[in-house]
C-alpha cells in the first residue's frame, strides 16, 4: 500500500506564530489513482493540511513524501511543478478575464509577444473534450454560473498536467444535480488515472464518491480506513468525536396559522438572470417552514430579494402582515417583522472587522433597550451579546473581539442569534448552514424548528437537500425564475424525486 502511495504525510505538525496548533503529528498516505476523502469538522485542520500540500504553507515539523521521495513544496508554483493541482473552495478566477485566459493564466499560449487566442481556444477545446468538461472558452467568467466556474477551475488545474487534484469542499456551492454531475466527472477523471483528494464534511458525499477516508479532528488523524470497512455510525462517530450522530429534530405536529406572507402573480424582469422571477404565487403561513429547492440561478435569489425588500416587484402583489409590500424597502420588511439569515454571511451578514457586540446588536441598536438618553448603552449591548454567546454556545475570545476571530460556524451562530433575537414573525433562512460543521448546523436546525413551533413562518432556501427534507413542512421547486413544482407534504419525498424539477425537466405547477 505505502509502496503504491503517491503522497505520504509523515508526522506533519503545524503551529502558528501566535501559538495556535493547527496540526499535530499527522501521518497517512494517499494511494495512486483513487478518490481519497479527507473529512472532519470545521477547524479540524483539513484546510491547513491541504495548504501545506499545495505549498501555501510550510509544516513546522514532519515531512512530505511524493512518490516515496521527500518533497519540499515551497509555493503553489512548485506544487504545480510536482503535478499537484488544487480547486479552492472560494474560486480563484478573475471575473473580467475569459474562460480561456483564466485557464492559461501564467502559462499563456504565445505567438510572438502576444497571446495566441486561436491556439488557446483550441487547447481549451481539447482539454474540454479529453476530460469531458464542456465550457465556452471565450465567455467572461463573470457571466458564468457557479457550477460552470467550478468546471473552469477544474480545467485550469488539469491544464497544468497534474497527477493529483485537490478539491476543497467542492459541493458547498452546488445544487444536488450539479453535485451529481461533478461526481460523475470526478469518477471519469479517476478512471483516466488521476488521483483525487476530496475534502468534505458531508459524509453522504464522502461515501458516495470516495473509496478511502482520512478523518481529522482537532489537528490529529483519528481515523484512516477504506470506506467499505466503515459503517455510517462509525464514520460519524469518528468525525463528531465520541458524540453520537445528531438526532433529526422531532417534527412536532402542530396547526398551521394564518397567512403571513402572500405573493400573487409577482414578476420582476430586471436584474441578473438569477434574480429574475415571473408569475410567482406563494403563501407562507405562520408556523410553517416552506422549503425552496432549485439549482443556482433558478430564481430563489430573486424570491429572497423580493421578500427582503432588496428589490421591488414589477407587477403583482406582495402582502406581509396585512401590509402592501410590493415595493417595501428592507427597512419596511424588517420593521414589519422580518428576520433574515443571508446566504453569504461575509458579504451580507456581518461586519468582520467589527466586534462581536457590534455585530450582535446591529439593526436593533435603535431599540430602547440599548438606549441611554440620546446615547447607546454600551453596557447593555455587551450584556445582550454575552447572553447570545452563552445561549448559542458561540466559542469566542470575548464580546469585544472582532468577528473575524471566529470560525465560520461560530460566526454563523452569532449572526443567527442576532436575527432570531429580533422576535420575528417571518424568517428567511438562506443557506443557513452552508459551510458550517455538523454540530453547529444541528443546533441551528433545532432553533428554527422551535421558532416555527412558536408561530414564526420560515422560508428556507437551501441547496442541501438533506437539510431541505429535514426542516421543511412543504417544498416548492424553482426553475428559470418560476415555481415549477409544489409538494404540500414531504412524506415520502426523496432528493431523486426533486431532481428533475430542479433541472427543469419536469413541471407540475
Amino acid at each position, binding site marked *: 500500500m505505502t509502496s503504491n502511495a503517491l503522497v505520504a504525510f509523515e508526522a506533519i505538525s503545524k503551529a502558528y506564530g501566535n501559538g495556535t496548533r493547527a496540526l499535530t503529528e499527522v501521518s497517512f498516505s494517499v494511494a495512486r489513482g483513487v478518490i481519497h476523502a479527507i473529512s472532519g469538522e470545521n477547524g479540524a485542520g483539513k484546510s491547513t493540511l491541504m495548504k501545506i500540500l499545495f505549498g501555501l504553507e510550510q509544516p513546522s515539523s514532519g515531512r512530505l513524501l511524493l512518490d516515496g521521495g521527500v518533497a519540499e513544496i515551497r509555493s503553489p508554483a512548485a506544487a*504545480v511543478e510536482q503535478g499537484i493541482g488544487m480547486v479552492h473552495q472560494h474560486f*480563484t*478566477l*478573475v471575473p*473580467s478575464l475569459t474562460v480561456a485566459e483564466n485557464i492559461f493564466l501564467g502559462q499563456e499560449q504565445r505567438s510572438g509577444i502576444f497571446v495566441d487566442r486561436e491556439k488557446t481556444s483550441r487547447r481549451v477545446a481539447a482539454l474540454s473534450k479529453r476530460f469531458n468538461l464542456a465550457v465556452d472558452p471565450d465567455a467572461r467568467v463573470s457571466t458564468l454560473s457557479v457550477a460552470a466556474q467550478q468546471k473552469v477551475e477544474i480545467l485550469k488545474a488539469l491544464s497544468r498536467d497534474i497527477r493529483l487534484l485537490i478539491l476543497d469542499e467542492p459541493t458547498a456551492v452546488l445544487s444536488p444535480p450539479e453535485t451529481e454531475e461533478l461526481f460523475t466527472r470526478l469518477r471519469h477523471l479517476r478512471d483516466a488515472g488521476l488521483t483525487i483528494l476530496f475534502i468534505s464534511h458531508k459524509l453522504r458525499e464522502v461515501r458516495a464518491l470516495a473509496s478511502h477516508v482520512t478523518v481529522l479532528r482537532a489537528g490529529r488523524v483519528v481515523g484512516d480506513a477504506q470506506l467499505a470497512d466503515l459503517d455510517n455510525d462509525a464514520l460519524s462517530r469518528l468525525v463528531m468525536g465520541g458524540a453520537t450522530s445528531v438526532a433529526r429534530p422531532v417534527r412536532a405536529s402542530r396547526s398551521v396559522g394564518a397567512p403571513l406572507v402572500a405573493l400573487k402573480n409577482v414578476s420582476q424582469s430586471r436584474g441578473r438572470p438569477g434574480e429574475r422571477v415571473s408569475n410567482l404565487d406563494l403563501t407562507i403561513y405562520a408556523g410553517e417552514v416552506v422549503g425552496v429547492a432549485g439549482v443556482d440561478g433558478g430564481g430563489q435569489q430573486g424570491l429572497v430579494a423580493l421578500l427582503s425588500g432588496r428589490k421591488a416587484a414589477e407587477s403583482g402583489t406582495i402582502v406581509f402582515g396585512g401590509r402592501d409590500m410590493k415595493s417595501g424597502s428592507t427597512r419596511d420588511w424588517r420593521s414589519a417583522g422580518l428576520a433574515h439569515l443571508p446566504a453569504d454571511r461575509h458579504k451580507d451578514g456581518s461586519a468582520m472587522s467589527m466586534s462581536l457586540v457590534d455585530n450582535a446588536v446591529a439593526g436593533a441598536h435603535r431599540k430602547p433597550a440599548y438606549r441611554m438618553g440620546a446615547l447607546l448603552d454600551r453596557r447593555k449591548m455587551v450584556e445582550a451579546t454575552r447572553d447570545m454567546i452563552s445561549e448559542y454556545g458561540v466559542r469566542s475570545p470575548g464580546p469585544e473581539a472582532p468577528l473575524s476571530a471566529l470560525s465560520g460556524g461560530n460566526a454563523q451562530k452569532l449572526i443567527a442569534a442576532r436575527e432570531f433575537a429580533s422576535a420575528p414573525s417571518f424568517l428567511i433562512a438562506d443557506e443557513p448552514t452552508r459551510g458550517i460543521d455538523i454540530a453547529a448546523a444541528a443546533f441551528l436546525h433545532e432553533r428554527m424548528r422551535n421558532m416555527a413551533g412558536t408561530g414564526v413562518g420560515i422560508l428556507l432556501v437551501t441547496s442541501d437537500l438533506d437539510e431541505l427534507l429535514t426542516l421543511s413542512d412543504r417544498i416548492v421547486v424553482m426553475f428559470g425564475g418560476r415555481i415549477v413544482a409544489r409538494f404540500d407534504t414531504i412524506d415520502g419525498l426523496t432528493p431523486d424525486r426533486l431532481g428533475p424539477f430542479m433541472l427543469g425537466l419536469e413541471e407540475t405547477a
Partner: protein
Amino acid sequence: MDASSVAEFVAVALRVSTPLTLAALGVLISTRAGVLNIGIEGMMLAGAFAGVVVSAFTGSALLGLAAAILIGAALGALLATAVHVAKADLILSGIAINIAAAAGTTLLLFLITGSKGVSSSLPSKTLPTIDIPLLGDLPLVGMAVSGHHILTYTAFLAAPLVALFLTRTPVGIRLRAVGEKPEAAAAAGVNVRRYQFWALAASGAFGGVAGAFLSMGYVSWFGQNMTAGRGFIALAAEVMGGGSALGTMLSAVVLGTAETISITMQGGGLPSELVQTVPYIVPILALLVHAMRRRRIARKSAA
C-alpha cells in the same frame, strides 16, 4: 468659428491633452495592477526636472528623455517598495512622493542654477516636432494633426499599444489578474508583488514622459511646480476611462478639451476665476453623465 479656427482648436486640444493622456495611461497601468498611483504628480515633476538637467549636461535630448523615464520609474519603484516592504499606506506614500518631488526638484534646481524658480539658465534641449507627410499637406486636417510634438504622437500611439498590452499579451493579462484578483494570480504562479512593483515603475515612467513633454516640448525649461496639478487631472481621466486604455485616452482628451475651452474663453469678458473652473467642472459632470448612463444601460439590459 470658421473651419481653420476649428482645426486650430483641435491642434491645441491635442497638445493640451498630451501630458494628461501620458500620465493617465500611467495611472491606468498601475490601477489595473491594483495599486493607485497618487504620486503621479510628483513623478511628472521629477521627470520634467530630470529631462531638463540631463539634456543640459549631456547635450542630448534623448538622454534627457531617458532620464525622465528612469526617474519616474525609480519613484514608482520607490512607492512600490514603501508599500510592499515597509507596508506603508499607499495613498499617504503617494502624497509623500508628491511632497518630496516638489521639495527635491526645487532644492536641486537651486543648487544647480542658483534660482529656485526656473532653469532657463541651463542650455537644455527639446524634443522635435514632426510633420506628417501627405496628411500634413492637407489644408485643415494637416493644421489639426500635423506638426505636433513627437511626444504628442507618442501619447496617442501609446494608448492603443497599452490597450493591446493589457488585453493581448501574457504580461498584460497577468497584470490585470493581479489587480482584480491577486489570490487568483498568485495561485497561477504569478508573483503579485513583482507585478505591482513593475506596474508602478511603468506608471512612473509614463509620468516621467508626461513631465518631459512639459519641460522639453511644451516649453524648454523646468519651472518650480510646473506640472500644476495635471497629475490629479490624469487620475480623474483614468477613473472616467472605465479601466480601458482607449477610454482613458478619450477621457484625457475630453479633459484637455475642457482646458482648451477655458483657455479660449479667456478674454471673453468673463471673470477669469470662473473660466478657470471649467476644466474641473467638466470631469465632475462627465463622471455624473457616465454614472447615469451606466445605470440606464444596466436597466435596459435587464429589461
